[in-house]
């Protein structure tokens, strides 16, 4: 089912959770809503589901505006962060619930309901556990029961709130891959909320990056990672170095150096912030386009050598090199190096915190709202 979100505004008291959100989701797509706590991603999901009603705006499923309709009329499969399995029912009864509560003339016969529920449990690889109670299952199993229960009503859209938030790292990774395969098999339009950029990038067809109740960027995983539209997106999707710079036409001068990097596109003139990931910095010969730095310390973490360095203007930066890379020969404490930027983004300079991070939680968000956004 194709979903259109149009001009959604939603406030909790005086806190604006969503400030005008527009989003198009194609039928059969797997979309991630990614953002920090308080960014409005969960609220957007709940508005699409019908668990919250927007103050303004439209939610269109296909051709139908759903914004004023309650959740039970929307036929959405919602998987809660903590699954909300009915603990007094067996796994089978949980999955069958959505079919059993239908009105008599739409309700399939009991034998068919049980068969359908067993099929779904088979699909989520829980065949044989149908007489267990939720308390007798592991976290990952509960998650999949919740998924089967949501799929039982043949939802127009599947909505998952932090689907892996309550699981440990190993289970999380396996389930992530498995969910991707399940989606490819069932083809149900799926939207999930996460604050983990790795999860979003690995699982989703498209990523919606949200911040402070607005969408910062919508794009494929490559687009948001390679061409971040805003400093926030760049910062949120990975480790970031921010260097002072200046642009003149096609030339970018980094950190007050006089050898510019010549770029393909034309910029306006003026001071900028140059955003570069630690892994996109490489050692180059003196005088080449780039900037100078002095290595302060190095540390090997797994397959990566991580260096802390200081630029000529005193800016602390981080460099990451695979430990087999030849740069590791040069990257020693106290070394003076010239660094080139393999890939970077420039944004007009903004006033910001000294440490180069963007505040990720809106400070005046009410406590319960912050709690809801948390893992």
């Amino acid at each position, binding site marked *: 089912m194709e979903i259109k979100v149009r001009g959604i505004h939603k406030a909790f008291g005086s806190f604006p959770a969503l400030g005008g959100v527009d989003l198009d989701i194609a039928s059969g797509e797997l979309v991630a809503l990614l953002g920090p706590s308080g960014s409005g991603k969960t609220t957007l999901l709940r508005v699409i589901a019908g668990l919250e009603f927007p103050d303004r705006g439209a939610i269109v499923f296909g051709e139908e505006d759903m914004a004023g309709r309650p959740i039970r009329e929307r036929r959405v499969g919602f998987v809660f962060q903590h699954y909300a399995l*009915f603990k007094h029912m067996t796994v089978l009864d949980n999955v069958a619930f959505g079919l059993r509560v239908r009105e008599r003339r739409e309700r399939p016969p009991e034998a068919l309901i049980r068969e359908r529920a067993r099929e779904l449990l088979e699909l989520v690889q829980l065949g044989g556990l149908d007489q267990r109670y939720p308390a007798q299952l592991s976290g990952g199993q509960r998650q999949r029961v919740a998924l089967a229960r949501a799929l039982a009503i043949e939802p127009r859209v599947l909505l998952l709130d932090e689907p892996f938030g309550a699981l440990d790292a190993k289970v999380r990774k396996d389930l992530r891959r498995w969910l991707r395969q399940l989606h490819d098999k069932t083809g149900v339009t799926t939207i999930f909320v996460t604050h983990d950029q790795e999860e979003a990038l690995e699982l989703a067809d498209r990523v919606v990056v949200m911040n402070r109740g607005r969408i910062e960027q919508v794009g494929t995983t490559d687009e948001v990672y390679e061409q971040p539209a805003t400093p926030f997106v760049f910062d949120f999707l990975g480790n970031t170095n921010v260097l002072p710079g200046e642009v003149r036409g096609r030339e970018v001068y980094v950190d007050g150096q006089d050898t510019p990097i010549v770029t393909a596109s034309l910029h306006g003139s003026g001071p900028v912030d140059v955003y570069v990931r630690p892994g996109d910095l490489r050692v180059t010969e003196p005088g080449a386009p780039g900037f100078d730095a002095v290595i302060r310390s190095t540390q090997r973490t797994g397959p990566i050598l991580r260096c802390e360095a200081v630029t000529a203007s005193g800016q602390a930066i981080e460099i990451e090199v695979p430990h087999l890379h030849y740069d590791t020969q040069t990257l020693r404490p106290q070394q003076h190096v010239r660094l080139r930027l393999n890939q970077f983004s420039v944004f007009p300079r903004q006033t910001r915190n000294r440490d180069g991070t963007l505040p990720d939680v809106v400070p005046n968000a009410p406590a319960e709202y912050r709690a809801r956004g948390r893992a």
Partner: protein
Amino acid sequence: MSTITDATLQDPPRLPPEFKQGPLMRRNAAVTEAPWVRWTLTAVALLFLLGFLFLPLIAVFVEALRNGVSAYFAALVEPDALAAIRLTLLTAAITVPLNLVFGVAAAWAITKFEFRGKSLLISLIDLPFSVSPVVAGLIYILIFGAQGWAGPWLMEHGIKVAFAVPGIVLATIFVTFPFIARELIPLMHEQGTEYEQAALSLGASGWQTFWRVTVPNIRWGLLYGVLLCNARAMGEFGAVSVISGHIRGQTNTMPLHVEILYNEYQFSAAFAVASLLALLALVTLGLKAYLEWRHGDELVATRRH
């Protein structure tokens, strides 16, 4: 589709059977006192229980049977006593279901919705606990009595509330109202609204959600509340005493009947009726203990009484 090879497909670890019986009592050297301290404390507690709870209870039964078993039963089947028993049962039969509905409705409203004046409502629910039952009885006299606000009008229409059964029921409802609501509020608060939201998202109606999801989630807490409410409804003395008028055979409940008999120096009859109330208390206690033992985890949020 590949299969999941991690631990999620395996059974969760099974707990050793002693865990199912309740929390394990572990001896921890750091918080364990010397044996003589433990024994002394235990002995003091037991002696206290023996002296203040167990002995009086025994005394009730001993006194009741002092003049023999036949006298005991004679006191119970005496018409006034039977009328009192009937009235007590009737009052409980009306009060408990009504408070069940009110209690669930109040707890539902308080825990599932946000509205203005919620904390005021919570305080009001506690009011019957903090007001002396005598005052509760007086309130109803003030409203429904012959000189009260609504009394004369009701009299004209032939409805008698004060010094009649409706007054007794009203006073009992007032006094026992908090038991069920108080039991449910913490429980339902802890459960939140996610289960209901899940049921609604699956297409259930509000009514289906209530019966199939909410009620099963709160059933043991509810039963516990009903038990306490019933015990109090049958045993209530103060409020009922004020509003009933003590008319023998008509507006006398069991506790009132016990008092009347006692004041008339019919000790063994008084204790015979009292023994019934004591028996009720024991049954309630037994059921309560059973519920706590069987469903302690679901009741733990409400451990207030």
